[in-house]
């Protein structure tokens, strides 16, 4: 029997791990339930069409045209004009403090321009830090306000000349790029996978150590490679199930487009999941207790979410942050999955980033095997 690797010993470890997984109902439920819950929660939070958002009106002229437009805007349910202010500076303060999401400014010469037949303008500023919040509201604004104005003037919409149409000037504040929500759902897949996979495997060895079963396991003839695979492969299976659930939900609930090859997508996801479980396992070879393992995991989570391009546009970050971002598998995974899912990229296009994910696997596995303590010292 080979000392380094034996298939039957690996099978022994795998069976044991699956039984334990099945017995631990709560954890098992969490492995499937939590990702779905998170997807639905975040997915809807991001994808929903928020209504009745607080807005400020800067109305410098209190004419009947303005009043008609404001009431029409309120009727769309998107806007709730909590504040009517006199100056732009005041409105600016409200937006900076987050009290309002929109500032609608109706210029003082508004009525005069309408009466003279000049094209009237209004300015809408939107807090675009969360791009999905503003998008629905902005897109309805133009038509609604324009129609309200025509109605007020008694001009039928069919006879309106271009100059009668309202000109809406939109300023997206704070996040001019406006990441689309489609960007976010595939990203969410990466983040959710990272969360569950790394966390689950990070306690794989520390749990054995804390329960005292490690002593027995080490006294039996299982090699470090077998122990690693025995721990990691079951979670790869769990990861695959999670992927199926999340992708299914993404399609059914959010109608996220799948433009690229599904096989390429699944391959990339599996490579990513393997990197994640190995990362978790690496953490568990370093940590001494389950608590330490979880702390290390969270220590890793926050920067990877912030710097991977999930939260902020990657290219918008300063150079040093971009460099730092490159060390997270999530960063590379996001590039691959966005390219494949949303832009229909083929293998050659994403080969480089996928290769980097494979590199993570090799590095993590090597490090874990090196770090693995065959003894209790």
């Amino acid at each position: 029997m080979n000392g380094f690797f034996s298939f039957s010993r690996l099978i022994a470890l795998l069976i044991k791990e699956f039984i334990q997984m099945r017995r631990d109902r709560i954890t098992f439920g969490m492995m499937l339930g939590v990702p779905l819950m998170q997807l639905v929660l975040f997915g809807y939070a991001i994808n929903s069409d928020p209504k009745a958002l607080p807005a400020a009106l800067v109305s410098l002229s209190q004419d009947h045209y303005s009043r008609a437009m404001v009431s029409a805007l309120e009727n769309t349910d998107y806007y709730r004009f909590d504040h009517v202010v006199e100056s732009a500076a005041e409105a600016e303060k409200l937006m900076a403090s987050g009290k309002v999401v929109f500032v609608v400014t109706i210029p003082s010469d508004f009525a005069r321009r309408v009466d003279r037949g000049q094209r009237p303008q209004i300015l809408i500023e939107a807090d675009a830090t969360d791009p999905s919040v503003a998008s629905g509201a902005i897109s309805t604004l133009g038509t609604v306000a324009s129609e309200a104005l025509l109605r007020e003037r008694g001009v039928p919409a069919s006879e309106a000349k271009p100059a009668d149409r309202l000109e809406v000037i939109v300023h997206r504040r704070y996040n001019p790029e406006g990441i689309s929500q489609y960007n976010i759902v595939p990203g969410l897949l990466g983040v959710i996978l990272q969360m569950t996979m790394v966390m689950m495997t990070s306690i794989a060895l520390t749990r054995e150590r804390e329960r005292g079963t490690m002593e027995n396991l080490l006294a039996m003839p299982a090699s470090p490679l077998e122990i690693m695979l025995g721990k990691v492969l079951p979670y790869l299976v769990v990861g695959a199930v999670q992927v199926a659930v999340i992708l299914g939900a993404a399609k059914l609930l959010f109608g996220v487009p799948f433009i690229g090859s599904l096989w390429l997508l699944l391959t990339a996801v599996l490579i990513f999941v393997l990197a994640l479980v190995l990362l978790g396992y690496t953490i568990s070879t370093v940590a001494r207790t389950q608590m330490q393992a979880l702390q290390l995991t969270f220590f890793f989570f926050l920067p990877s979410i912030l710097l991977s391009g999930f939260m902020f546009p990657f290219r918008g970050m300063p150079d040093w942050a971009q460099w730092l971002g490159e060390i997270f598998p999530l960063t590379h995974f996001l590039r691959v999955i966005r390219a494949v899912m949303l832009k229909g990229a083929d293998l050659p296009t994403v080969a480089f980033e996928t290769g980097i994910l494979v590199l993570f696997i090799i590095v993590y596995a090597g490090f874990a095997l090196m770090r693995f303590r065959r003894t209790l010292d």
Partner: protein
Amino acid sequence: MNAIDVHGLVKRFGDKTVVNDVTMQVARGEIVGFLGPNGSGKTTTIRIMCGLLTPDEGDGTVLGFNLRTEGLKIKREVGYMTQRFSFYEDLTIAENLAFVARLYDLKPVGAHVDRTLEELGLASRRNQLAGTLSGGWKQRLALAACIMHQPKLLLLDEPTAGVDPKARRDFWDEIHRLAADGLTVLVSTHYMDEAERCHRISYISYGTMLATGSVADVVRDAGLVTYLVDGPKLEKLAAELRERPGVEQVAPFGASLHVVGSDEEALKAALQDLDGREGVRVSRGETSLEDVFIQFMANSTDNMQ
């Protein structure tokens, strides 16, 4: 060739030397008892022998394999029973045994598991979670699991702690039967009667091996003299005797006191005036292994504090 042949083992944790220059030889087929007070380094020594700890100094072979370099080979031929139950509590009895059987590549797995369960008398409870077994049954399960792959050397760390007398007797019968077939056993214990069932004992105290040999050898080499004192109000008498020079141990055993000392003349002198007292009888007694151990413990300074 000896089954265990280690010399000069040293193990330190931080600046504490837990195992200090331990040398041990155990022949094939021998049953050696490993005794010593709590925290004296028994578990640590056993762990070194099965490759779970690397010694800081010292060397040796276990079953002919180098302690430092051939750990995996040692593991395959050794059965190690840990002091604390360390099988999976969330696996059933049968699943635990099947896990062990597969790890040692025993085929067919089912037959090995069934046979072991049968021998244990646990066949009817095979689907019970190991964590829900009583303490004694956990010990018996662990023991059964570690002899399943028919090891050549058994390292047992307090295997009978909490086990009832009948099961203990069965256990020792089994150990002797296996040893007759050539299995070597190193077993740590705190029970004197178990020590007496071993071919040989080794006594370790705070990391240092103090005595080794058959029970009779160890008792003789200790050079202790024991007197039995019978009479009324033994409690008061014991307190009085403890103060006297030459008396090193006074311990009640049933209706008499064991009075132990290492200097026969001094002890005689100390007990001289008792013989005349009303109802008190002094007679020469046998020194027991326990007396010897208590003496060892009293003499060795606890370097663990």
